[in-house]
């Protein structure tokens, strides 16, 4: 009998074949359609979430003063450079006056001449007055003599006529004086106008501020209204923020915000919403708002810098909440996968607001305390078996 030897060989063969079969069964159950899907679960809890809104904006100056001439002309000088701080009423530059100064000099001469003319006219008035008074006296004296019958009627008539002539010439001198005065006023006004025009060629800072741009240099010809120097008020920096219209419900003035400037990543600055613009951007489908800093950073951010703005909305009433990774759309319906007695069931839900950490309000279809699937290794379907794990394969803690 050779049983022992046969047994030994049989055992060796079995030692190879049995593990192979076991492996095959393992492989068939652990991969392919029979394998359970590893999932992680969480318990839906009832809590209040505070949605937040995230937008991006650029820093802008609330007031930008574009200073330039009111008529076309050539720039004579520009006194300031970009970055200079200027005071209100400070001279920033000047346009070339061309012949304006000469015209003012001519007006000066004309003014002096007109003043002389007025003096002459005044002297003439005085002279006419003296003549008039003498003729008046003579006339009244001869009237008395006529009553005493000492002079003839004809002589008296002559004196009366002399008086009337001097009276007329006095009126003429007076009118002449008035004319000379008016001429003087006209020339004064003309000259004043020219001086005003001359002053208008000066580029003056309307407020205290910072020179943000110097658009033209001396010698350049600019048209009326073109800016030579731009002045901004650095204290008035704000952020022009754009929010996606999908989530802006609840955005209103006064809400606190956190601002992160692109140049200072990781540093959060506090601010608040100043106003929500009544006009939204129809092309980009964004709602616009203005956000101001609570306190301006010591080093002023540059105008045009990108800023990320997170608006903190007020907390919502308590509802069941679920992570947004657990809310899925299956066959056109939004819902969550419930775990009931280790079996999967798809429960359609109605979702509400979302916060930035990914928690979604479940308004209908889920109760606090129910167990739901958060992550899964594969897409789920009701008949698939699942295996609940702490963490999915390949995901580091």
């Amino acid at each position, binding site marked *: 009998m050779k049983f022992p030897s*046969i047994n030994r*060989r*049989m055992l*060796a*063969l079995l030692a*190879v*074949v049995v593990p*192979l*079969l076991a*492996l*095959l069964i393992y*492989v068939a159950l652990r*991969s*392919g*359609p029979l394998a359970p899907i590893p999932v992680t679960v969480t318990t839906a809890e009832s809590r209040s979430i505070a949605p937040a809104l*995230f*937008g*991006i904006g650029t820093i802008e100056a609330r007031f930008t003063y574009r200073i330039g001439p009111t008529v076309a002309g050539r720039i004579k000088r520009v006194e300031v450079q970009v970055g200079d701080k200027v005071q209100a009423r400070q001279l920033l530059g000047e346009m070339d006056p061309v012949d304006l100064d000469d015209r003012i000099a001519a007006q000066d001469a004309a003014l002096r001449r007109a003043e002389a003319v007025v003096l002459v006219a005044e002297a003439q008035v005085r002279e006419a007055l003296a003549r008039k008074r003498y003729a008046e006296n003579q006339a009244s004296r001869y009237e008395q003599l006529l009553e005493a019958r000492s002079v003839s009627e004809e002589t008296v008539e002559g004196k009366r006529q002399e008086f009337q002539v001097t009276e007329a010439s006095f009126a003429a001198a007076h009118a002449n004086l008035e004319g000379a005065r008016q001429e003087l006023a006209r020339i004064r006004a003309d000259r004043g106008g020219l001086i005003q025009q001359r002053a208008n060629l000066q580029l003056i800072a309307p407020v205290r501020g910072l020179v943000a741009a110097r658009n033209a240099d001396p010698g350049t*010809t*600019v*048209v009326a*209204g*073109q*800016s030579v120097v731009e002045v901004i008020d650095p204290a008035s920096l704000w952020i022009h923020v754009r*929010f*996606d219209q*999908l*989530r802006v419900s609840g955005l209103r003035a006064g809400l606190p915000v956190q601002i992160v400037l692109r140049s200072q990543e990781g540093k959060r600055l506090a601010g608040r919403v100043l106003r929500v613009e009544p006009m939204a951007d129809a*092309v*980009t489908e964004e709602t616009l708002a203005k956000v101001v800093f609570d306190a301006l950073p010591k080093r002023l951010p540059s105008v045009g810098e990108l800023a*990320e703005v997170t608006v903190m909305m007020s907390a919502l009433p308590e509802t069941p909440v679920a*992570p*947004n*990774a657990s*809310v*899925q*759309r299956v066959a*056109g319906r*939004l819902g969550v996968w419930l775990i009931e007695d280790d079996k999967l069931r798809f429960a359609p839900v109605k*979702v509400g607001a*979302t*916060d*930035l*950490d*990914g928690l*979604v309000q479940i308004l209908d279809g889920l109760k606090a305390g129910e167990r739901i699937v*958060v*992550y*899964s*290794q*594969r*897409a*789920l379907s009701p008949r698939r078996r699942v295996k609940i794990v702490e*963490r*999915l394969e*390949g*995901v*580091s803690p």
Partner: protein
Amino acid sequence: MISLAGRDILHSWGKFVLTGLGLGLLIGVTLTMAGVYRGMVDDAKVLLDNSGADLWVVQQGTLGPYAEPSSLYDDVYRAIRGMPGVNRAANITYLTMQVQQGERDVRAMVVGVVPGGPGEPGQPGYLIAGRQITRGHYEAVADIATGFKLGERIQIRRNHYAVVGLTRRMVSSGGDPMVFIPLKDAQEAQFLKDNDAIAQQRRRTAANPAFNRPGTPGLLDAVLASQSVNPYINAVLVQVKPGFIPEEVAEPIRRWKRLQVYTRVQMEEILIGKLIATAAKQIGMFLVILAIVSAAIVAFIIYTLTLGKIREIAVLKLIGTRNRTIAGMIMQQALGLGLIGFVVGKIAATFWAPIFPKYVLLEPRDALLGFAGVILICALASVLAIRAALKVDPAEAIGG
């Protein structure tokens, strides 16, 4: 009744098992090749599944957005949303590019999705860690195959993104893992020029007297602003209302909006029939040759194994064993070998499939087909061997 085959196998069990192992590895390679082919097709299908769309609206006259470039204005979706039967419409952009993460970069398909909440078309269907995108800018959900981890910062063109979620099996038709970012950022990444190009373009425009007239201040600014807009997307994904047939929703859009619309069936046809056709045929051809070669090798091994025992068979015939018994022995051995080979092959393929860089899909149907094939080939090969064995002259047992 003593099993002749069993006795013979036990007699030289080492040889038998080793031959079976070798055969198994060969079958494993064949199964894997079938898996590579299936994986390729599955990559294309999963791309369509993941988009969550019933209809793809693309530029007229193109096979976009996967097989050909397609470019639409980003407000087209508003008009589509108003069409009958449309339940949901969402803009989407696709761009395959290198995504930077620290020192290394990963080839990925960057998908721009509307961060409109859970279940919107285009968003990843399920996650394995983290959360979906909640901010309108600078967040990303990446496929785990990219190697990115939660909380890492990645760079796409000029901007940095925080990885907030991880997903799985979200790949392009070429097998590149996907990175989902908000649509507005993706539009920027796709159509925005680099800073140097922008600066040069501004300088060029400023030097052009037609755009920089002294008498028209503000014209240059307006021209520059108009040069840096990017209101384009690649496609609009549409989900149809329950009760509507996708084709009857697609037709009015084609007709009245003058855009190309593809249904799921058409899209599959484009992806599998056109986009990956050549690559798939290449793999398929290789699979066919490998299957034929494997069959030939299996047949030859069984044949030579039998020829190696020809002397013992002659002895059996000499002692008057019936032909049926001898044929049965050879047949049983061949089938046993085939069985071991298949088991080893299936196990090997399952264990090495996940190591492949691209997806290898081992379908149970393929495994069953393979099993049937192996058994059939073993049976056929054993017929050859049986013929040789039966023809042997019993005299050879003493002659030799």
